[in-house]
C-alpha cells in the first residue's frame, strides 16, 4: 500500500451551542466522533450522507481550517495541528478547496483573472509577468475563454464561475483538492461539463480529491473510494464500485434505495426510507441509526458498532451485518 497523502485519525469535533439570548443550557454538538479517513495520492474519496451528518465539518478539518477537538490530521507526514500558522500557510499551497456556490465563493469585486491570480500571488513567488501567463494557461485548461477573464463573477454563468473556482484551486499546483458539493448548484447539462472537467484535471495533474456530495450518482461516478457518514460517524467505507454495487450497512442501502432513477419504477414502488435524521444535538444511544433501521435489535440500542474490516477494504459499522458475516463464515 502507498503512503497516504492525508490521513485523519480519531477525529472528534464538537461545538458549543445553546445559551442564546434567551439563556438556556449550554450543550455541545458533536459533529464528528472518532472519524478516520485516509486519501492516497491520486485517489478520489467520495463522502456521502444526509445534510447535517458532518461531511462539511470533516472537509474543514482536513483543510486545517478548524482544529479538531481530538485526533490529528497528517498531511504528507506533517501534523497540521502542531504546525505554526506560518508553516500551515506555506503548506496550504498543496491542498486547495472548491466550494458549492461558485458565485458566492468568488470575490464580487475581482475579475475572473484576478480571482485566478490571487492564490498565485499569495502562495507562490512568481513574477507579475509569469502570473499573467499562468492565468491565461489556467483559464485555457479549465475551458474558460480568455474573453471572459475581464468579467466580474456576476457577469458569468454558474458553470463559468465554477470553472474560475477550479482554476483558482489548481493554480498553486496542489496535491489535494477538497470539493464540497462542487456541482450541486449547477443545472444538469452544466453539471456534466464540470464533472468531465474535474475528472480530466485529476487525471492530468495526478491530483487526490475529497469529493463531497449529497448526490450519490455523482459520487458513484467520480469516486475511487467512498465513505458513508451518519450523525458524525463513518458507517461504511470501501471501494466505490463495491459499496454501490453491494452496500452492506442498512443506512447505505436506504440512501442508495432513495435515489430516483430515470427508469421504469419497479412494480409496487420502492421501499420507503423510514424517519428523518435525528438531531445531532441529541443522537440516539448505541448505533445512532437504530431509530430508522429495519434490522435494529437490543444490542443496537446499547452498543456503538465499530467500523470493522470485512472483505477487501470494505468496512461496515453494523452489529447485524457483522453477525451475518460470522454466521455465513
Amino acid at each position, binding site marked *: 500500500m502507498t503512503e497516504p497523502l492525508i490521513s485523519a485519525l480519531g477525529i472528534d469535533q464538537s461545538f458549543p451551542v445553546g445559551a442564546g439570548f434567551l439563556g438556556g443550557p449550554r450543550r455541545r454538538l458533536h459533529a464528528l466522533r472518532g472519524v478516520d479517513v485516509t486519501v492516497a495520492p491520486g485517489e478520489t474519496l467520495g463522502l456521502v450522507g444526509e445534510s447535517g451528518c458532518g461531511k462539511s465539518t470533516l472537509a474543514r478539518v482536513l483543510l486545517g481550517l478548524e482544529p479538531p477537538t481530538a485526533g490529528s490530521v497528517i498531511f504528507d507526514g506533517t501534523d497540521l495541528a502542531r504546525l505554526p500558522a506560518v508553516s500551515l500557510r506555506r503548506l496550504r499551497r498543496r491542498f486547495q478547496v472548491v466550494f458549492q456556490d461558485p458565485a458566492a465563493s468568488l470575490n464580487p469585486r475581482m475579475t475572473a483573472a484576478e480571482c485566478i491570480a490571487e492564490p498565485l500571488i499569495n502562495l507562490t513567488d512568481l513574477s507579475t509577468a509569469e502570473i499573467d501567463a499562468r492565468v491565461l494557461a489556467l483559464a485555457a485548461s479549465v475551458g474558460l475563454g480568455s474573453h471572459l477573464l475581464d468579467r466580474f463573477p456576476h457577469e458569468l454563468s454558474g458553470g463559468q464561475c465554477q470553472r474560475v473556482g477550479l482554476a483558482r484551486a489548481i493554480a498553486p499546483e496542489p496535491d489535494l483538492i477538497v470539493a464540497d458539493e462542487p456541482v450541486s448548484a449547477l443545472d444538469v*447539462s452544466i453539471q456534466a461539463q464540470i464533472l468531465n472537467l474535474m475528472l480530466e484535471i485529476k487525471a492530468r495533474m495526478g491530483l487526490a480529491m475529497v469529493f463531497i456530495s449529497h448526490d450519490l450518482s455523482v459520487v458513484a461516478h467520480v469516486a475511487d473510494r467512498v465513505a458513508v457518514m451518519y450523525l458524525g460517524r463513518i458507517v461504511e467505507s470501501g471501494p466505490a464500485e463495491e459499496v454501490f454495487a453491494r452496500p452492506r450497512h442498512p443506512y447505505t442501502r436506504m440512501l442508495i434505495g432513495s435515489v430516483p432513477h430515470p427508469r421504469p419504477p419497479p412494480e409496487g414502488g420502492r421501499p420507503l426510507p423510514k424517519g428523518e435524521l435525528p438531531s445531532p444535538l441529541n443522537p440516539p444511544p448505541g448505533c445512532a441509526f437504530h431509530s430508522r433501521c429495519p434490522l435494529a435489535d437490543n444490542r443496537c440500542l446499547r452498543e456503538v458498532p465499530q467500523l470493522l474490516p470485512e472483505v477487501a477494504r470494505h468496512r461496515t459499522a453494523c452489529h447485524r451485518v457483522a453477525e451475518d458475516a460470522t454466521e455465513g463464515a
Partner: protein
Amino acid sequence: MTNDSDPILDVAGLSVRFGARTERVQALDDVDIQVRRGEILALVGESGCGKSVTAMAILGLLPKRTARIDARRITLGGTDLHGASDRSLRRIRGNRIGMIFQDPMTSLNPVHTVGGQIAEIVRQHRGVDRRTARSRALEMLDLVRIPDARGRRDAYPHELSGGMRQRVMIAMALACDPDLLIADEPTTALDVTVQAQIMALIADLRRDLGMSVLLITHDLGVVAETADRLSVMYAGRIVEEGTVGTVFSRPSHGYTAGLLGSLPAEGKRRQSRLAEIPGAVPRLSDPAPACAFADRCAYVTADCRAGVPPVVHPGPGHRCRCIRPDAVYADLSQSDIVRAWQ
C-alpha cells in the same frame, strides 16, 4: 389514471415578455400546457427556462407593470384565469389552486404556529369558525402523515425539520380541496431520503384524492417515478411532450436527448466522460426565429436555424418541436435508459 376528458388546467399560446423599451426578455413563447384530471404532469427544464414563470403566469402573480402576458386561453376547470380580476384570482389561489415551493422555510410565517397558518387559510377561503378551522388543520396534518399531529399543530416552523415543513406546506396547499396542486421544485432543498418520502406522499394523495398536479422539476429521476406525462421546456418553449413512457422510450428532441445523456446513471462506466451539452442556456433578450437549442444541439443542421421548428408527432400523444426527431431517436435507441423503457 389519465383520460382524455377536459383538462383541469388548459393553457394555450401563453407568451410572457418582461421589460420595457430598453431590454426585452421573451420569457415564454407560445406555451401550451394541459393538466388532465387526476394526472401528474411534470414540467421539466433547467434554471431560467421559464418553468416558474409559467406557474406564476397561471396564478396571476407576475408583476403587471413589467410583465406582458398574452394567451389564447388559461382556464381552470372551465373558469377563465387570464381575464380574471385580481379579486377573483385571490379567491382562486389557495382555494382552487394549491401551491408549494422549493424552500418551505421562506414560505411559512416564522411567528405563527403551523396549525394556525393552516387554519387561517381555511377561515379565509371557507369562512368557517375558529374551532372548525382548527380541527381542519389537525385533519390536514394527519393527512400528510405528520407524526403526533395533535402535538405538532402548535409547533412553530423552526421547530420542525425540512421534511416536516414541506409536509405542512402540502397540508396548507390542500386544506381547501383544490382542483390543482402546483408544486415548484418541492424536493430540491431536501435530502434524497426525505425527497423519496415527500414524492411518495404526493403520489399517494393524488391516488386517494384524485388530485391533479403540475410538478415543476429538473430531476428526470423524479419525473420517471412520479409523473404520468411530461413537458420539456427550453428557453421559454415546450420542446417535447408526451407520456413518461413515450418520451423516455423514444426521446425525439436534441435537448431531451442531451438531458438523458448527461446523467451520471448506473450503466455508464465509472469515471468515463459524460455526454455534455456544450455551451450555456441562451439569453432570452433576443430570441432568434429558429430552434433555440440549435447552438448546443448535437444533431443541428442549417435548416434548424431557418425558423422555429413546427410541432411534429413522433407517436400518438407525443409532440416535439424538432425537425430531426428520427435522427435523435436513432442515436439514442441503444442507450441504457431508453432501452429500459421499451
